[in-house]
């Protein structure tokens, strides 16, 4: 299946390229990683990076996520079976986007990948700096990404998160 991510930036459909651009997706990932590493002294597990965008981008899942990071994942998953049944296909569709965003961050040394997982790199993104342009949707996604980082940090077993979403670890 040829997707827009197997062709160069200039030749992608402009809307798709702009909406899923690696800087923005990378920013969301970096926010999750930062929140994760801020809550627990551990590296961010690489497989979990691939479920951040599928949970944060679509409005359906974004709004169904719990408001607090101390909800346990198993209980939440049991309550949202129907919503979760869509996740595997979304993960598959967004995999190239996540991959590109991770590469982008690594190239700019904003993120470091090691066998133990992801950590912030030498020159992390200046997440607190003022943006030239923003919208309520973007702000909502940024909040969700931070929440996911903290939430995942509170779960005992990263594999159970993937399993509950129907994604093979």
């Amino acid at each position: 299946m040829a997707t827009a991510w197997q062709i160069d930036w200039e030749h992608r459909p402009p809307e798709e390229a702009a909406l899923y651009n690696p800087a923005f997706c990378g920013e969301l990932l970096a926010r999750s990683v930062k929140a994760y590493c801020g809550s627990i002294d551990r590296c961010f597990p690489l497989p979990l990076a691939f479920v951040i965008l599928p949970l944060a981008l679509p409005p359906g899942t974004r709004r169904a996520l719990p408001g607090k990071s101390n909800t346990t994942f198993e209980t939440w998953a049991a309550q949202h079976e129907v919503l979760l049944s869509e996740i595997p296909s979304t993960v598959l569709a967004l995999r190239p986007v996540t991959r590109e965003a991770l590469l982008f961050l690594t190239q700019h040394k904003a993120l470091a990948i090691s066998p133990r997982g992801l950590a912030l790199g030498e020159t992390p993104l200046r997440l607190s700096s003022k943006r030239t342009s923003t919208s309520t949707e973007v702000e909502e996604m940024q909040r969700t990404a931070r929440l996911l980082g903290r939430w995942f940090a509170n779960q005992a077993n990263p594999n159970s998160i993937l399993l509950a979403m129907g994604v093979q670890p």
Partner: protein
Amino acid sequence: MTLQLRAIAIYSHTGERREVEFELGRLNIVTGASKTGKSALLDIVDFCWGRDECTVAEGEIRRSVKWFAVLFDNDGEGIFIARHNPGPGGRGADHIYFERNIDELPASASHFLQNVTAVALRSHLSQILGIAENLYVPEPGATRVPLSASASQAIFFSLQAQDEIANRRLLFHRQGEQHIPVAIKDTLPYFLGAMEEDYYLKQRRYNEARARLRRLEKDLNELRALTTNATTATEALLQGAKKVGLVEADVFPETTEELRGVLRGASAPREFHYAKTDDAASDLADLEDRRRLIRGQLMELREEHAQFVRLDREATDFTVEARAQEARLASIGLIASEAEGHESCPLCESKLAVAVPSVSQIRESLRHVGQQLTTVSRDRPRLQEHIASLEVQRAELEEQQRTVQRDIATRIADNERLRIEQDLFTEQARVAGRIGYYLENVQAIQEDNGLRLAVARGRAEVAELEKALDPEALNERIATALSLVGRDLTAYAQALQLEHGDNPLRLDRKNLTVVADTDEGALALSQIGSGENWVGYHVAAHLALHRLFRARKRPVPALLMLDQPSQAHYPPDRDAGVISADEDEDQAAVARLYRELYNYCEALGGAMQIIVADHVELLEPWFTDATAQRWRDGIKLVPMSWLRGE
């Protein structure tokens, strides 16, 4: 989807583990002296399955254990459930740790934490068992609420505690508790497979189709009433038409066809002609013409205006979309500088097939979107100016229209005779309208059979669904399933040489008991004597039920736990110890029971697991082979070392 038990484990306060492992698909026996914790095994399984109350007996187990745990096997997938011991005196605890896809028991309990509630656990288990959405709706008039079968009810068929297996009044696990018998009765049709997996869907469809049919029938009846009351209605219409002069007074149509023809003529549109001879009103026709002209122009103008407003809105939509893109592209501002070599992979230094977009490329896109936005907002004022000019034109035309209308009104007021004429015309128009409406409906029902067809189709659909949902058919399927169970039940009772076993036996669904049909009449289990028979019938009934469950692949755990089936011969306080199989009647009967359980598992070829806790021990090779644990000479469920540590 066969769910069996791989192991039961307990974890001490200091993190030590003690486990009892079972083999899948066969008879497993835990034999031992009394007060070694054999009965706790069944209670642990019951508690870890999500029961609200912990029934493990008070004593050293409740004091020295921190976590009760079970490891289920779901077609090879290990499902681990650990539940916090509520401690001495406690009844329930909501600390449950649940993990799927696990290979063996966790060595320590250090990472156990509450990750699921009891309600969510039961929902997970229902899903694992593969229980489809279902709902048992009680017969009309019953006061109980509809109940859906779930994992909570499935376990009732798999457990037989020490005080249940020899109870002559209660056949199933927890049958003596409030609401439980009704729950078993109502979910039995689903578990027996008498209720199809899509029964729930069909029921929903049926309710929806019936509501739709009722609506269609109502429409049809309204139309029918219009046509069946034809004679009086048409007569009244004809009289009305004559009165206002739409029909000549001496017309008397004879057939309905003729009558309809006359009415059709009466309702035909007619010209509004003023008395042309009157000079005062001669310019009225001109004024009418002018009014029509202005109305036409206004209509055109409104359309044009609407078009431009839409164009303007589309431009706004584009702006919104472009702003969303701009907002996301703006993330590039977080990057300090351009990185070296955006075409190569930062991890392995190889050249990427598709280069990751560079900062400058994304900046270029951001600039492009920004440019588009300025162009659009530059375009918009021009659109708006044009819209404004159209609105001015419209206002002018409307003013003209008002003038013309005023002129017409003055002219009419001028002439009294004209006014009367117009009154008559209004009345004529009203009657013509009524006739037109009537004729239209008559025509609709005569020419268009769509509604009738839709009603017929709806009826057929409801009848079809009704047949699929037919309570008679459901009862028949239940009877079939129960007669199969009865057949096996009779066979097992004969093999166990139970009293009345030579009569046809059946499972009584209403009273949840076993009934023997003898020449003297029906004998319920509670009327049959002797503890040996009570135990035997419990075992036979459960074996027969599980045989049906397995044959139909029903979502019930492929597991049967029995506690102390030998108690009719050797009471719990009399430790029998090792016995041979043929010294007396008691020994022969116990041996027969165990042999039957052993053969049952063999015959089903691994599809069924039976776990028995008992204090007898038979001197037979197959019995020794099936013995999973032997708790004598100080070996117990809770190791001695745990107690000393306290």
